[in-house]
């Protein structure tokens, strides 16, 4: 029998008949754990604040982000030009950059190193960097932490590759207007929105998927894809989106679909396309391209003669399919609880999914209220991804992002260039994907640079973190403010040894912070 633990305070009561448990989490440790998983890590003093407020109360607030005042981030966003561009603007900039590149090549006969100097090309690159930067800064500055965590989760679940042709200018809009508004709504709405997004239609080639033999009612002018003129009409059905929809977005690879289902799904989505892609147009259903025959998917009949509506019908079917509930719940439990998600957690999530018809908040609530989330064995049991490492490091030292988009480059150096995951499965969650010797050395270097105020894109003032001066005091402050009290005896000794050989207290403090942020305890969440 499992005792459902509703709040960590109740967990202090030993359940009758349960086997001997490890001691339950203290309010302090509960708060730290919640901040590490539900948020991108604590800011100085935040663990105590959340503990005092009550961690479940804090979590419930995070589950309703629209009620959280996010003024500071709003002010920062106000100054970011990338947010003022829509798809059309970005498309125009991108096309100008391509044209400039071609002109240079036509004129030159060697690899134009001067390409980088061209203002059109530079502008395109700057915007891409700003767009990536936005993700890092939002995660670091926002009060709506869980919301940004979920945006990151869905960005990977519904992965799109920024560098593929038109996705260069379709992706920013995809994140802003498809993912972000629906990150904590209903899964079904999010699924349908991604299916109709130009970014996804382009990335997985569905925009070119047409029924065999279909041809457009008017002559096609040259279509530009990725800047190259492609003078071919689409040749038939493209199964790419159909396959990834079933395998990655909904049912999962073991979800019980067949190759016949993939083909039928592809037929259903013929005609789901983009209006004037080279100008950043939106979703457009091309009736002439649609296969109007009868289909069968997962045993469900889709009668002949239907159009765009059968795609919507299919998406709703998939969104509410038990295999989908299970697949996505597994991913959520992986993200929030453990790389190998506990079955109980997944069951709780699926139950909440059923009950709420795929309400993301309800599913998250079930996970955060469940015993697996609070099990001491699962605390500190995950390793941060590069993005989580950098953002949590920024938060823990109260770093201020400056106006240059350099943080994106740091995340890329650490192995996670944002929006640049090539394959549709998105960035992985398991530690085996991220923990390797080179990556650890990179993290140590970033930590040391950050603490010394030498990480590009940030200003750091360590006074708010720890006082420069007495070594004992410094180590204690680092343990409390940076490691949330998890500093091991070994780490204390190593720090003590290292710091005693440094005269300058400011330098000593930078070293202590750098070692703590680059050390093993801080890699865990």
């Amino acid at each position, binding site marked *: 029998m499992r005792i459902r633990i509703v709040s960590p305070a109740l967990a202090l009561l030993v359940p009758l008949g349960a086997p001997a448990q490890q001691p339950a989490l203290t309010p302090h440790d509960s708060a730290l754990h919640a901040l590490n998983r539900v948020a991108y890590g604590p800011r100085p003093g935040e663990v105590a604040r959340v503990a005092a407020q009550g961690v479940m109360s804090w979590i419930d607030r995070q589950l309703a982000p629209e009620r959280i005042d996010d003024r500071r981030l709003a002010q920062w966003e106000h100054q970011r030009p990338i947010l003022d561009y829509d798809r059309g603007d970005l498309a125009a900039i991108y096309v100008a950059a391509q044209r400039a590149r071609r002109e240079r090549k036509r004129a030159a006969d060697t690899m134009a190193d001067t390409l980088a100097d061209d203002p059109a090309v530079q502008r395109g690159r700057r915007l891409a960097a700003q767009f990536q930067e936005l993700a890092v800064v939002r995660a670091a500055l926002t009060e709506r932490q869980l919301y940004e965590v979920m945006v990151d989760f869905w960005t990977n679940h519904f992965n799109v590759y920024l560098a593929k042709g038109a996705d260069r200018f379709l992706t920013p809009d995809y994140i802003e207007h498809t993912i972000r508004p629906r990150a904590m709504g209903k899964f079904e709405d999010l699924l349908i929105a991604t299916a109709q997004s130009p970014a996804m239609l382009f990335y997985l080639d569905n925009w070119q998927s047409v029924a065999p033999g279909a041809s457009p009612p008017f002559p096609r002018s040259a279509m530009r894809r990725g800047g190259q003129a492609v003078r071919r009409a689409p040749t038939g059905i493209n199964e790419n989106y159909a396959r990834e929809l079933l395998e990655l977005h909904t049912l999962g690879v073991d979800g019980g679909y067949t190759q016949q289902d993939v083909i039928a799904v592809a037929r259903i989505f013929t005609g789901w396309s983009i209006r004037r892609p080279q100008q950043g147009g939106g979703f457009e259903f091309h009736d002439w391209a649609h296969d109007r025959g009868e289909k069968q998917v997962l045993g469900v009949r889709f009668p002949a003669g239907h159009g765009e509506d059968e795609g919507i019908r299919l998406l709703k079917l998939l969104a509410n399919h038990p295999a989908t509930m299970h697949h996505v719940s597994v991913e959520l439990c992986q993200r929030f609880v453990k790389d190998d998600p506990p079955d109980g957690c997944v069951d709780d999530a699926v139950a909440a999914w059923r009950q709420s018809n795929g309400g993301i908040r309800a599913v998250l609530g079930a996970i955060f209220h469940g015993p697996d989330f609070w099990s001491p064995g699962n605390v500190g049991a995950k390793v941060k991804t590069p993005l989580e490492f950098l953002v949590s490091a920024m938060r823990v030292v109260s770093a201020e992002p400056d106006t240059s988009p350099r943080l994106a480059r740091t995340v890329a150096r650490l192995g996670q260039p944002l929006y640049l995951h090539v394959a*549709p499965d998105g960035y992985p969650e398991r530690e085996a994907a991220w923990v390797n*010797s080179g990556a650890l050395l990179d993290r140590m270097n970033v930590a040391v640079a950050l603490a010394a105020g030498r990480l590009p894109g940030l200003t750091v003032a360590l006074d708010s973190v720890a006082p420069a001066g007495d070594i004992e005091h410094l180590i204690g402050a680092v343990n409390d403010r940076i490691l949330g009290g998890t500093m091991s005896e070994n780490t204390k000794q190593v720090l003590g040894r290292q710091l005693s050989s440094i005269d300058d207290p400011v330098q000593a403090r930078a070293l202590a912070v750098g070692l703590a942020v680059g050390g093993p305890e801080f890699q865990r969440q």
Partner: protein
Amino acid sequence: MSISRRVLIKSGGIALVSLGLDPLFLARAAFASYRPLPPITGQSRRILVCLFQRGAVDGLNMIVPHADPIYYRERPRIAVPERDVVDLDGYFGLHPRLAALKPLWDEKSLAVIHAVGSPDSSRSHFDAQDYMESGTPGVKVTPDGWLNRYCQHDREHQDTPFRAVAFGPQLPRILAGSAPALAIDDLQAFGLRGPQPAARDRLTRAFEDLYAGAATGLLSTSSREAFEAVQTLKRVDPAQYRPADGVDYPRGRLGKAMLEIAQLIKADVGLQVAFADVTGWDTHVNQGAGEGQLAARLDELGQSLAAFTRDLGARMRDVVVLTMSEFGRTVRENGNAGTDHGHATAMLVLGGSVNGGRVLGKWPGLDPAQRFEGRDVAVTTDFRDLFAELLARHLGAGDLGGIFPGFTTDAARFPGAIRG
């Protein structure tokens, strides 16, 4: 130079299995159990160096079918003039800027595989590169690369953190996976950074102590690998490296990568698989013929490969360099004096065990009836057959099953790139 190996046994490793611990962790942990090995002497391991020409290199201007009039008919502006081609076998010849490779052809350590490519018809750079690196054409969700799967499969050589190294800022797809692999952007800068060597060393020791005491699981094994790599590299002392007499690597990223690969090979740190990539092959506009954009790239490639072989000298006996590219380019030039995305391309293999002095594969010809979709050179050798041959015959991989999922390797289909 010999290095001693620490023996690290993961105690209780068997017990952990019964607790149902993550098998992936165990797989990685197993890699950390360095066995005691005799120091490496002249009996060195075979090494495979993979060079990815990103952007789809024009195989036809790289290895020119100069005896075929169709080549000249279809490329009025960009065909390499026959008098400039460095003839190889009377039919094919080298682009003049690859002339540095001619001696290697003559001494039979260079072979060409033409009309090689993917069974998948995608002409998308990113899809096709993905397929060539994952080794699974048509399948996008393969989590690891074929070189990493080889490393997983052959545990015997996993006794050093330098077993598989990519020379660049990030680990490429081809080396992604559960087997340990290092991405080294700059040999001299690898490791902790510090204002001077003393500060750097102190920092390294500090972190090493931190991780030794408090890390568990994968953090523990990876950090140990990291510090072992840093230690080893310190002894190798990359800042002091000088190539062999008279060897001049060309300036630029490729030259530097090849120099570092040569250096690591000579340092005997157990390097077995190396990777580097070189961009700039996507010549849609103003490609040039004997001179021009492509020529400049080929010049850099030829000089780098030649310098590399000269620098290694007798050690080339154990090394094979393979060039690859995601697809080729159209037979006919386009309206911008360039070429568009094609299908088959040419790959080079270079080294001691190579069956050199020949153009391998089955040449389909350039006649429109023989082209792929009427426009590109047709693929007659699946790239997986070439890669499999190198793994099997050069690196000595036993059973290749699982390295190319969905593909049954068959020695009968090997193009014959490796002798013996």
